[in-house]
């Protein structure tokens, strides 16, 4: 919980960072022989130019937002979950198999079961590093990174091995889930499906949990000072594990939403490091839920736009990564730069005041000020 003034400062420096990053992006375009105006024009066009593209942008933003919130809840509890990618894969795989195995059941029942399974499997997969951390004090950053590889490799094996589609037309991955089971599209032809409503519910729930509840407060305090949490009578370990399970559950659910939303079947490339983009959004916004929601739309916009920019103007989609990285870099340096500037300003002021005072000019007023 920061004061309003700090928030304001943060937002200002964020806007400046974004502006600088876009400017550097423009310079890069110019240097490589493209017109920046044309480039950014194509990007905007590619993000919102048609209903289909707008749908894709919204879908991408929702993904980033959910994954960002997943990072945030873990981080608030003092566990930095780098393993969302793996949790996402696990959730995606098992929910896909539910759709294939239970295709005879009524549609809504299959979707509900698939949602629950993705949440449970993602949560359980996050439970492993959480327990390793709380019971054996094994660093969660290392275990989650390693568990990512495990999950992706295992999924790759299953979708291309035992659960590989027998159809010749599908070279990689499982069978497609029956069309009647997957989420219906909100905008035809786009990736945006009715899973958006689930995403909205989860987002609101996460905001409420983090900002308005006792558990959110307790998770926060535990993440900041575990010893204090334990000392205050909170179940510190339980809270940490809870925050990690919630994080993993959201990632699992996102996996399910990817498959049931637009991919249709499980492949080894169900997610292309989507979690890490969400994680960076969360880090840029200091794990603030409202900030994550807003910033997700900006990056969702950029990501979708950049793809189109690549296709239409020929500017590499990697430019998006460059801009992303510059913003992160500037935001990381932001605190230091702010402190430095502030310090210089006060030193100057104080020096002036002291010199005047030494001359005996403002003795009385200064005395009052110092009180």
């Amino acid at each position, binding site marked *: *919980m*920061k*004061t309003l003034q700090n928030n304001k400062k943060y937002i200002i420096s964020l806007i400046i960072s974004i502006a600088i990053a876009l400017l550097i992006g423009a310079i890069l375009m110019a240097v490589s022989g493209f017109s920046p105006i044309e480039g950014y024009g194509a990007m905007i066009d590619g993000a919102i130019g048609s209903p289909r593209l707008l749908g894709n942008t919204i879908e991408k933003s929702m993904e980033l937002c959910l994954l960002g919130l997943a990072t945030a809840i873990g981080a608030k509890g003092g566990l930095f979950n780098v393993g969302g990618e793996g949790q996402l894969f696990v959730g995606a795989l098992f929910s896909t198999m539910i759709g294939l195995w239970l295709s005879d059941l009524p549609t809504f029942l299959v979707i509900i079961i698939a949602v629950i399974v993705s949440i449970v499997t993602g949560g359980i997969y996050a439970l492993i590093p959480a327990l390793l951390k709380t019971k054996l004090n094994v660093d969660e950053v290392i275990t989650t990174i390693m568990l990512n590889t495990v999950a992706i490799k295992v999924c790759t094996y299953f979708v291309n091995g035992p659960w590989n589609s027998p159809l010749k037309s599908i070279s990689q991955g499982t069978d497609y889930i029956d069309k009647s089971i997957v989420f219906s599209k909100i905008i035809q032809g786009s990736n945006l499906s009715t899973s958006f409503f689930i995403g909205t519910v989860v987002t609101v729930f996460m905001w409420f949990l983090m900002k*308005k*509840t*006792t*558990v959110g*407060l*307790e998770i*926060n*305090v535990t993440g*900041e*000072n575990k*010893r*204090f*949490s*334990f*000392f*205050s*009578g*909170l*179940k510190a370990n339980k809270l940490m594990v809870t925050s990690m399970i919630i994080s993993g559950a959201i990632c699992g659910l996102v996996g399910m939403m990817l498959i049931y939303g637009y991919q249709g079947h499980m492949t080894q490339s169900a997610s292309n490091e989507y979690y890490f983009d969400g994680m960076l959004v969360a880090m840029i916004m200091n794990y603030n839920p409202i900030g994550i929601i807003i910033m997700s739309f900006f990056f969702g916009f950029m990501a979708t736009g950049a793809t189109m920019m690549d296709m239409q103007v020929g500017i590499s989609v990697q430019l998006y990564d460059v801009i992303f990285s510059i913003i992160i870099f500037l935001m990381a340096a932001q605190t230091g730069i702010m*402190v430095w500037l*502030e*310090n210089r300003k*006060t*030193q100057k*002021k*104080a*020096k002036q*005041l*002291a*010199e005047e*005072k*030494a001359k005996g000019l403002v003795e009385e007023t200064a005395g009052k000020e*110092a*009180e």
Partner: protein
Amino acid sequence: MENKETIIEFKNISMQFPGVLANDNVSFDIKKGEVFALVGENGAGKSTLMNILYGINTPTSGEVIIGGKKVEKYSPSEAISRGIGMVHQHFMLVPSFTVAQNICLSHEPRKSKIFYDLKGAEAATEKLVQEYGLVVDPKAKVESISVGLQQRVEILKTLYRGADVLILDEPTAVLTPQETEELFNVIRRIVKEKDMTVIIITHKLYEVMAISDRVGVMRQGKLVGVNETKDVNEKILASMMVGREVLLDEIERFGEPGETKIEVEDLVVTDNRGIIACNGINLKVREGEILGIAAIEGNGQSELLEAITGMRKPVSGTIFLNNHDTTDMDPGQIRELGLSHIPEDRMTTGVSLQSDITTNLVIGKERTPHFSKWGIALKKSTIHRYAEDLFQRFDMRGAGVDTVVGSLSGGNMQKVVVARELSFDAPILIVAQPTRGVDVGAMEFIHKCIVDKRNDGGAVLLVSADLDEVFRLSDRIITIYEGKVTGEFKAGEISKMDISYYMTGDRSNEEGGTN
């Protein structure tokens, strides 16, 4: 000392930190061969001023003149070369090195310019020991010697580097009365025989009276005044420091204590390294009683409190709190039985530094119906009002209840802890180092809170490294040495000087029969 020459001169020193004017136009001088005491509340700017003299901080404006020459570049190495030596509150020694190695660190004698000359280092140390009469074994490892001796090593280190002005930052905070007396003898000797100058920063006013020639008082970054020590007394100094009259009077003793609230039997507890810290401790605290534990740091008192409060699992023995066996309970369960705890280290245990005051005040109560609906949805405005109320009542100073606790001064931070813990209204209060690093004004306030708790029928267990505090507050005192209870006394039964025999395990003058 009227015609002594000036060795250090502070001229219009101001030091601005972000948000704090730590020194505000401070000017005074220090004469060669005197003991100058610098006193003031926490955050008054004493340490900052000394850090400027030692070159750690560069003043925003003003100048320091050492031996008639103005300081141009502020750095510790420059200060050392000008003969300034500083012993910090927290010692800067390498525990696994010997005394000689520590003393010669960074100025090691060498053989053929390359190899470390350990014999030479030991010889040099021995020479210093002889010269200044600061007896310590050059070959002993620092981790194996007492805090008092470690301090000597620090002093010898500055002497080895050629200091003729010695700055001691709160040197007696970690010492027993005996060790303090020895330190003072050392100071008197080096000043008298070697014509050294000593600047001593301290909280304890009787020490100022005992050791110093002159005393400077600081308040809120300003120098309130410099006096000859013989012209002032403790009361005058205290009111100069706080800016008002301070009533550090005797605390009234209270009627007969009631039933037993804390009972510890044969308690054995290990420390973080797995070494036995409490070795069979027995104690009882009753309602309406403050039991003080007098012990030198590191004799098991910290582990004892951690075991009682559930922060640490005991190896054996039993703990009864409020008539329940709490030996195997965690802090949450123990708190429910009616215990509140002001911990030894507020920074790591007592607060969440990055959370605001409100959060720190409400934590532990957030699930009660008063502060949340069904234990889930926080009632933010109720919580805010509650925090505002405590903020006022405990006289915390800061921008407001939204201030991040980490930015508060030690005294205000401790008030947050005290406010929260007392607001539980628990019958048992465990207090450790309640006023460490806290200024006189806040100390007075916190002492009053503790005594009020006792007067309301609370059972209070107090641990403090500050013997004055233990003597001032306790109705009964026990001493602990190396994890064992070595003595038990009623208030007023024993003097501070005599009790240190029990605190150091020296039982030679014991009349027999304590425990």
